[in-house]
């Protein structure tokens, strides 16, 4: 099964049309008639587009950009519509990055999964918040969903949830063998931040992960992580845990995922079967919360 991640390093989106052209140009050559593909875009993709199209005005920081974006009440719906069209046009399974949406008066950071017919199969809300995200007024999601796809059971870890190790095991224990992660880590010290994020989660939970990291600027915030496709160390060259990586040139990062091989790795060393939940009671919410 083919997975593709883009990082927008070479993007220059002046209008919705240029975004569509960019996507068609990057993704179409990688598609084959006989095989469906999954495409993952980075976090804050909607914010990037709004900023790039000039819809956020003269904002000088990421905080200002977010505050401006959440005032544009029609933007999330328009963004959704555009991504659904793209999924249909390219005939792909699609995680088009993330968007800030209002729901029942609360503001969430979420990533949807779209099928090749453009239908929204589900949405994953961010579950934990950084200090900066709290200042934006974000609310936490309360569910980690998994979705049945031709790529197996799929889960999504949104943005900074990558650094919360609770997310991966819950998805893995719910059956996810493939995690998609839209991220937007800062350029500074991104290597170690990424090892501490999805790389670690993949190694503890033995799933695949398509990590698409934003690699461009939004209103002075310079995101610059590596876009990576992860697998358990045992099935990657040099035991690096990385199947494919993308640099700063904006080229798509592509990998074929071998589910059978992943299952072999798990059967030899079944980490989730070796869990000892009896010992974890101090962190179960009903028995006392972590501060």
């Amino acid at each position, binding site marked *: 099964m083919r997975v593709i991640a883009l990082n927008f390093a070479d993007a220059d989106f002046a209008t919705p049309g240029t975004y569509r052209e960019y996507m068609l140009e990057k993704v179409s050559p990688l598609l084959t008639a006989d095989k469906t593909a999954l495409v993952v875009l980075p976090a804050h993709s909607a914010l990037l587009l709004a900023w790039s199209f000039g819809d956020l005005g003269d904002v000088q920081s990421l905080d200002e950009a977010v505050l401006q974006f959440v005032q544009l009440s029609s933007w999330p719906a328009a963004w959704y519509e555009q991504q659904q069209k793209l999924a249909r046009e390219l005939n792909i399974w699609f995680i088009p990055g993330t968007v800030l949406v209002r729901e029942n008066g609360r503001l969430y950071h979420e990533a949807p999964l779209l099928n090749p017919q453009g239908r929204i199969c589900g949405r994953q809300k961010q579950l934990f918040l950084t200090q900066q995200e709290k200042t934006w007024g974000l609310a936490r999601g309360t569910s980690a969903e998994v979705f049945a796809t031709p790529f197996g059971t799929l889960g999504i870890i949104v943005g900074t949830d990558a*650094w919360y190790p609770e997310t991966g095991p819950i998805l893995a224990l719910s059956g996810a063998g493939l995690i998609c992660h839209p991220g937007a880590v800062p350029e500074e010290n991104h290597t*170690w931040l990424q*090892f501490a994020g999805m790389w670690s989660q993949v190694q503890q939970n033995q799933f695949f992960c398509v990590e698409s990291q934003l690699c461009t600027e939004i209103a002075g915030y310079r995101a610059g992580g590596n876009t990576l496709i992860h697998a358990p160390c045992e099935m990657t060259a040099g035991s690096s845990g990385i199947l494919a990586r993308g640099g700063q040139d904006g080229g798509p990062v592509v990998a074929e995922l071998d589910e059978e091989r992943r299952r072999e790795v798990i059967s030899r060393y079944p980490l989730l079967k*070796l869990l000892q939940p009896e010992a*974890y009671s101090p962190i179960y919410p009903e028995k006392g919360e972590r501060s």
Partner: protein
Amino acid sequence: MKLQERLFLSYLAWRTRPAVIRRHLQKIRLPERRQVTFPAADKIRVAAAQVEAKLFKDVRAYVDEMARIARSAVRDGAQLLVFPENNNYQLLGLLPGVDKLAKEAKTAGGPEKLPVADLFRAVGPIFLRIATVTFSWLAKRLGLYIVAGSFPCPEGGKVYNRALLYAPDGSLLGSQDKVHLMPLEISWGFSPGKVFRVFPAAFGGLAAPVCMDATYYETFRVVAALGADIVAVPIANPEEYNAYLALRGIWPRVQETPVYGIKSALVGKMLGFALTGKAGVFAPLELTPGGNGVLAEAKSFDREELVAATLDLAALRRLRAHHPRLMDSNPEFMAKYLPRLYQANAK
């Protein structure tokens, strides 16, 4: 138990009796005992031992080795020293024909066929007494906190892989049974521990989960919830060294759950196993000068080394209180899935 076995164990106990060990320890030249003080800055110097696995035919050689390492740590200013997992396997050299056992395991279908739990049911109490006497004496004599590493410990018919911790007055601060066993240990007949513990030390909370316990984020979340500031992880990893594979234990755990981490390692070849690892001292990215989460790390993965670093506990507490990325909680989300998913997975 056959008469022959009983006689052998009696002989082994006599050869390694506490009086022999204490007498020998008193002859070893060690620095003067220091008063352990922890200044207002909340700084503590810690050391991690990378111990080369070798079989000793005389208990005094084992004692010499441990004392030599402790002396080096104290000379480096250490107030807390951590020894590796299985830190008395070296004493298997006291058993005649033990090397043959390893060769027999190869022909019998691999190391998992070794009757290791049975072996330690017999000699475990004697080996454990050697460790108890040695590390208690060294801790008191040097005024040092010591995580003595872990030891196979028979109890109630079961065998646990148990870490022992000593206070600077020589008293046993506590013990921690390894909770997550490797498949090899399960095949050997070891039993897992059921709880994690944190021990109060003068500098803060100290925990000592063992080796594979650090594979799981839950371990560090639990000990942090119980008050750990420093988490020592003794390891003895029987796999070829690879930097990525070695990165999978304590390093990510320290990044997810902000604590200081100390990894000690048993390395080298012993009884058909090649043990590798790099002892090190680890911290959250924000507390390391290179931003890489490493304060000190051994240069080799298969030779004896001692690494040391100074930990700033006040800085750790400040980071926890104002961490830019971490320390959020979502009890509603967690309660929806845990412990239900764990219970379903166990079935």
